[in-house]
């Protein structure tokens, strides 16, 4: 009887998560575009064959992986530092914590527009500064080699607070006695970071790593508003490519194929990250 209370939630989750995934899997084996009059016709894996030879798909995969790796690594490093800072006791800590949360709470599109202005050439503050000290303009948003770094800055700014909070929660579960004992045995405070804090923080690091990796892999809002995928497609992410396939090229079959392969690549990325973390903890065991 009580189990009946689960039904609405289960139905809604199935409708929002389950049906789309099934629908994509099915669509990825069908041609469904303007050419077929938006009617799904089985095409025996032609979408997947096309994907294998699609330069743009692999370019976007590379870009998404590069973006996710660099921004998630930076975020975690910064988040550890911020969490350690916020874990100490000092006056005004609550206010600072609230302020540092602000970037996370704002809609992504709002600050994506803000970043476009900050990185603007020649009127944004950064280019004004380079001009002031007599450098050539950087053309941040129109140079395909560096634009993606600007999107990394936007992402790190927005999502670090979230990771910092998760890690802060982890820090607060570590009993103070451990540090006192370490201190009494003559351990250096800095060594405590590597021998107590980080090892005990590992589950929280893993959780924020997985969560952030998944979100960074699906990056969409930031890229679409900040660069539109440009210049020269250099910042286009897989999610944006799937979006363009569906909404601009009206090719739903291929869009579904891109979505599903994005999901598969994410699973692989998570496995790799998990293996690396497991390996490093083995090394740490071995070093002890």
């Amino acid at each position, binding site marked *: 009887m*009580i189990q009946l209370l689960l039904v609405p939630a289960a139905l809604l989750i199935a409708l929002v998560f389950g049906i789309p995934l099934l629908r994509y899997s099915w669509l990825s084996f069908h041609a469904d575009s303007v050419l077929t009059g938006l009617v799904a016709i089985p095409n025996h894996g032609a979408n997947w064959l096309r994907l294998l030879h699609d330069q743009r798909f692999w370019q976007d995969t590379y870009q998404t992986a590069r973006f996710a790796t660099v921004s998630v690594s930076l975020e975690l490093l910064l988040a550890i530092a911020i969490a350690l800072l916020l874990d100490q006791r000092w006056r005004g800590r609550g206010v600072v914590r609230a302020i540092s949360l602000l970037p996370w709470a704002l*809609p992504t599109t709002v600050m994506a527009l803000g970043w476009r202005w900050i990185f603007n050439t020649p009127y944004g503050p950064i280019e004004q500064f380079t001009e002031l000290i007599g450098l050539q303009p950087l053309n941040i948003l129109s140079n395909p080699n560096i634009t993606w770094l600007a999107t990394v800055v936007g992402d790190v700014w927005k999502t670090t607070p979230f990771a910092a909070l998760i890690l802060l929660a982890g820090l607060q579960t570590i009993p103070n006695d451990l540090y006192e004992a370490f201190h009494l045995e003559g351990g250096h405070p800095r060594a405590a970071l590597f021998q107590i804090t980080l090892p005990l923080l590992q589950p929280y690091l893993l959780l924020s790593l997985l969560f952030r990796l998944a979100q960074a892999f699906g990056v969409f*809002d930031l890229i679409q508003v900040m660069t539109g995928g440009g210049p020269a497609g250099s910042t286009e992410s897989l999610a944006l490519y799937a979006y363009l396939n569906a909404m601009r090229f009206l090719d739903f079959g291929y869009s579904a194929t891109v979505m599903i392969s994005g999901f598969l690549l994410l699973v692989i990325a998570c496995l790799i990250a998990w293996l690396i973390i497991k390996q490093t903890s083995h090394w740490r065991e071995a070093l002890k």
Partner: protein
Amino acid sequence: MIRQRNLWITLLLLWSLAPLLWQLYTSFCTHEALLQPLAEHNQRWTLDNYRQVLTANPPFWRYLLNSVIVGISSTGLTLLIAIPAAYSLSKVSQNVASAARLILLGAALFPYVLLFVALLELARSFNLGNNLLALSFPYAGLSMPLAVLLLLSAFRDLPSELEEAARLEGFDLWQRLRWVLIPLIGPATASTAILVFLFSWNEYPIALTWISRADLLTLPVAIARIAGSSVYSIPYGAYAAATVLGALPLLLLVLIFQRQIVSGLTQGAIKG
């Protein structure tokens, strides 16, 4: 030591606030002052950017109102479904509950952006496009995993004697939930509500594809549309005014509800 810490605190504040303060500064600048910031100007400061944004058609507050409607209806729907579900999961056997939590965690981690094309198809087949309240369905569905996880851990923290006592008093299931259990999980409910509200307020890809009528756009989509509207001129003063107006409600929300937000996120981390 303390001086070093103050340095880090200053850096953290700068990093968090500088991009926002730059928007604030930009929003009050005249066009000429933006193009030549270092030159002398007769008039450097102006309210024109705000006037422009607030008198546009539709005016900017319309988008704020739309986002409030979507946020409140999604939060209400989520809690309505998630509270009974979490209660029910706190009563089932350990194995079932563990399996359910694993599924919920996986769904909560899932990058939902990948779902929006199929969700758009659902909207088309049920004729849910251009309807603010209809957005609550995907939003409630996408927030459901996190909401159930948070509320489940709150229900499990309650001592079982409480409910037992209420049962002996002759309370039926509905009365026990209404008068005993739901008041006791108030803090967790508040945390969940604010997180769901923030998600619905900020959500972009689904709102972008489900809503096309200009007067129904939610704030994130309206902002993005402003961004896409004129590529060649530089109306950044007006952009900045729009971002400041869009950021203000959230600034208030974060300052008022920071404790709930923090405990929601951290509970999710510790117990999820």
